[in-house]
């Protein structure tokens, strides 16, 4: 491809449409928003924007709820990665075949992905309805009534419930991304390994896994960024409650902007989220690359 004497102008043309929309409708608003982080504003057009320097950031870092949000985000991130990556891979390996009905099964695992956050919240709230809801009723019938907790209302349990629900929804995407990687492995390599006497487990460990490193990295990075920004599901399920037990950076930002009318603080939170996301992505990227050198 280096032989191709493509002029810069021509290359730019291919980048232009994406760049145009991206810069005008994402980068530019972001810059405006980050700029607002140094001001205090009450949200009325034409109303004074007072310069406060780093005050907004100071308020955030002194706010215990901010740190709780950060902690929760980290826990959701860890939980999601630890659950969804192995489970998604397991499903992908399971469904990497051509038997009858496999498409239906794949579709079944992908169905939660297609539902909106409102739908997810609605049905899970019913399932977790206290006392006679689906889950509690089921447990009682099995005689396990004392296992019942206030799944979404108990501050100690709510976060785990939320993590599980998010994983339930997200596994489908992880699965199909893994599948696309698995299918790209040429059969020839697998045959060669089998001829060399490799059994199923060795095939998996020494042949398959290394070859899907790229898609694993993609899945991990998507999960990192996705959980960092997570908002919709949490907002409709618990709105950060009970008592901020499920508060995340996204809901914190949202409540600063829309409940407390403190747009400067909301912007400051956005800046912090961006920096964290950037750092985490760099780390994740390096970690994946380093394995490539070792492997």
């Amino acid at each position, binding site marked *: *491809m*280096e032989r*191709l004497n*493509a002029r810069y102008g021509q*290359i730019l043309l291919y*980048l232009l*449409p*994406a*760049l145009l*929309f*991206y810069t005008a*409708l*994402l*980068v*530019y*608003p*972001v810059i*405006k*928003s980050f700029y607002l982080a140094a001001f205090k504003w009450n*949200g009325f057009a034409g109303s004074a924007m007072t310069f406060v320097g780093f005050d907004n950031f100071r308020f955030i870092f002194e706010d215990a709820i901010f740190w709780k949000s950060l902690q929760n985000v980290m826990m959701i991130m860890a939980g999601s990665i630890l659950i969804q990556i192995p489970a998604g891979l397991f499903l992908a390996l399971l469904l990497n075949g051509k*038997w009858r009905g496999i*498409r239906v*099964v*794949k*579709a*079944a695992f992908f*169905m*939660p*992905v*297609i*539902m*909106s956050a*409102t*739908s997810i919240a*609605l*049905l899970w709230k*019913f*399932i977790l309805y206290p006392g006679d809801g*689906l889950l509690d*009723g089921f447990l009682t019938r099995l005689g396990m009534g004392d296992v019942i907790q206030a799944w979404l209302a108990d501050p100690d349990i709510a976060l785990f419930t939320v993590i599980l629900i998010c994983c*339930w929804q997200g596994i489908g*995407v992880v699965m199909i*991304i893994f599948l*696309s990687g698995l*299918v*790209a*492995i040429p059969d020839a390599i697998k045959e060669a390994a089998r001829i060399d006497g490799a059994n199923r487990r060795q095939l998996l460990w020494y042949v398959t896994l290394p070859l899907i490193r*790229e*898609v694993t990295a*993609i899945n991990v990075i998507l999960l990192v960024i996705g959980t960092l*920004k997570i*908002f919709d599901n949490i907002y409709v399920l618990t709105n950060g409650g009970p008592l901020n037990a499920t508060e995340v*950076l*996204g809901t914190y*930002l949202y409540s600063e*902007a829309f409940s407390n009318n403190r747009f400067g603080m909301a912007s400051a939170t*956005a800046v912090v*989220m961006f920096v964290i*996301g950037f750092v985490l*992505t760099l780390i994740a990227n390096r970690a994946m690359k380093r394995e490539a050198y070792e492997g």
Partner: protein
Amino acid sequence: MMSTITRYNRAAVLSDRTRKKWRKAPFYIGTSLLAIAFIYPLIYTLLTSFKTNNEIFSNYFGLPESWRFENYAHAWVKGKIGAYFMNSVYICTIYVVLVLLFSSMASFVLARLRGKWLTAVFYFFVAGMMIPVHAILIPLAQTSMSLGLSDQYSFLIGIYIASGVPYMIFIMYGFMKGLPRELEEAVIIDGGGLWTIYRKVLLPLSRPVLATMGILGFLSTWNDLILALLFIKKSDMWTLSLGLLNFSGFYTTDYVGLCAAIVLVNIPTIIVYISLQEYVEKGLTAGAVKG
């Protein structure tokens, strides 16, 4: 006449095959059970949509006392599903076509050409993945006002494209980087340029990722609520997800109507998924054979 040996062999072969099938049975059954357990919550929504609002609090498990198909008729009217359906289809289809086109073009040059500034552009795009949309709602609204575009879908679709591009480029980049170079070389030798490579080599090979991204892109916009809420002004221009808001009153919600509406709203996404999934399958197998 078959000798006993042949008959014995054939019997052995047959029972071998059936034995293999039976050995796989637990696998099939297990997977199916897992799948059913996984989507049970959705089945539950379906069942709920046939009940009455009072029944859902007293009869959780069971089948509806009577199957109220009229819930669907009511939901269709209350959620203005007929009217909003075309709106949603219009927005999502245009978005998917444009975002796939723009993202693939950009990923193409980013992934297949070399250059330091190209890498910078790539990171520039990827950084956009980390922006939470709520942080930019007000600046976007201000831009929309000053451009005077608040009566149309163009601004909304534009925002969708702007926020979809980072993800799409990120994933397509990874995919395209791994594509074989031989076909490109062939085109270059024949005197073709970027466009020919893009059209004749890259696009066909990228079908699986394009189809997958198409599905995910369609889903994200079909279900989007906050951006549609803020950037669609006229109520007859609403999308299906906005129509769902009609089921919430002051303190209460029409749950059964909402469930019925959710089922109706999700049918197109299932159709899109199934049709694109076939495409993904075809593309996947084609890619595997070539590689």
